[in-house]
């Protein structure tokens, strides 16, 4: 009786430790898992293409059976890789935005729903018994993956805009400090006049960058489920790149002003 109790206690702790370690994986670990699963999937593409060519050439029962096996293997690896990608962007979103008090909770919930679907797809792939069933399975998987990809692009853009907004806020704080500092200086000196003029021009430049970031943020806000998130994401990255260049020039201008006041 005691041995049985000890056995079940150990079993419980082993199960608990396994569950906890799966939940605590970082996005880097999940990305490594994705790479591993995607490489496995890529390794199955060539056998799949070979079996398809054979089946299209001979159209025999044997070639059809071989092609079905190759297609099922490919679909199974595909589901595994998609699960890894979904888990990766889910953790990335959670870590990047502190999901518990952030407005993008709905994306997190959507990814959870997709993971539930993928889990059932993973168990169903083994029972596919015909090529037409396999094609229907892949069609359904494709529509789910389209949604997941859209969320992936949204997460990318959200993180990029979030970083740009955070940097903008930090630069605004420094702008305020420099403004106060220049306001306190009562000396009438050509260097001080030049510093004040340069600061005023950089402040205007900062306003332009703020407008650019706001426009990029609005692009992401004014979307529907049918929007082309890949295109939107590219546009947002361009805006973020422009803002990084402008921020760099503003910061070096501020550094120049500060060093001239020493």
């Amino acid at each position, binding site marked *: 009786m005691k041995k049985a109790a000890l056995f079940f206690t150990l079993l419980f702790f082993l199960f608990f430790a396994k569950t906890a370690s799966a939940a605590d994986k970082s996005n880097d670990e999940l*990305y490594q898992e*994705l790479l591993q699963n*995607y490489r496995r*999937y890529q390794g199955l*593409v060539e056998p*799949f293409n070979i079996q*398809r060519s054979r089946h*299209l050439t001979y159209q025999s029962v044997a070639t059809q059976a071989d*092609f079905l096996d190759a*297609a099922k293997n*490919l679909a199974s690896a*595909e589901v595994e*890789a*998609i699960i890894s*990608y979904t888990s*990766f*962007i889910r953790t*990335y979103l959670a870590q990047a935005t502190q999901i518990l008090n952030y407005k993008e909770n709905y994306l997190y919930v959507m990814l959870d729903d997709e993971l539930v679907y993928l889990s059932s797809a993973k168990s169903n792939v083994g029972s596919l018994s015909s*090529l037409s069933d*396999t*094609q229907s399975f*892949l*069609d359904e*998987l*494709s529509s789910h*993956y389209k949604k*997941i*990809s859209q969320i*992936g*692009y949204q*997460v*990318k853009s959200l*993180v*990029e805009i979030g*970083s*740009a907004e*955070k*940097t903008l806020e*930090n*630069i605004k*704080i*420094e702008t305020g*400090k*420099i403004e*106060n*500092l220049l306001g*306190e200086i009562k000396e009438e000196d050509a260097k001080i006049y030049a510093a004040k003029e340069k600061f005023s021009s950089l402040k205007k430049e900062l306003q332009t960058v703020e407008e650019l970031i706001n426009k990029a943020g609005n692009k992401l806000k004014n979307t529907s489920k049918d929007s082309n998130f890949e295109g939107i994401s590219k546009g947002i*990255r361009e805006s*973020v*790149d422009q803002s*990084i260049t402008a*921020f*760099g020039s503003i*910061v070096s201008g*501020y*550094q120049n002003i*500060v*060093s001239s*006041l*020493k």
Partner: protein
Amino acid sequence: MIFLTVAFISGVVILILFFQKRLPETSINLPFPKSSPTPTIVLSGPALTIAPQLPGLNDDLTAIEQDLEKMKKEDVRLVPPTFIFNLGLK
């Protein structure tokens, strides 16, 4: 019997009143005045030649530069990988 009861209650009341008078006071009187004396000498520091905010500003601007370097690197890991969803039979 009534006399004994009245005498007992009166005794208890007298004892309470007696001990209440002997209880220590709740507030403590300080032996010195509460207000501190004002200094007779006014201290004045030397005039600053460098604004004290400048070193902090430089550090903050350097930290922002480092953030910008991180932002320059696009995280392509989030770009979804491509998959085959067609058996190619039609």
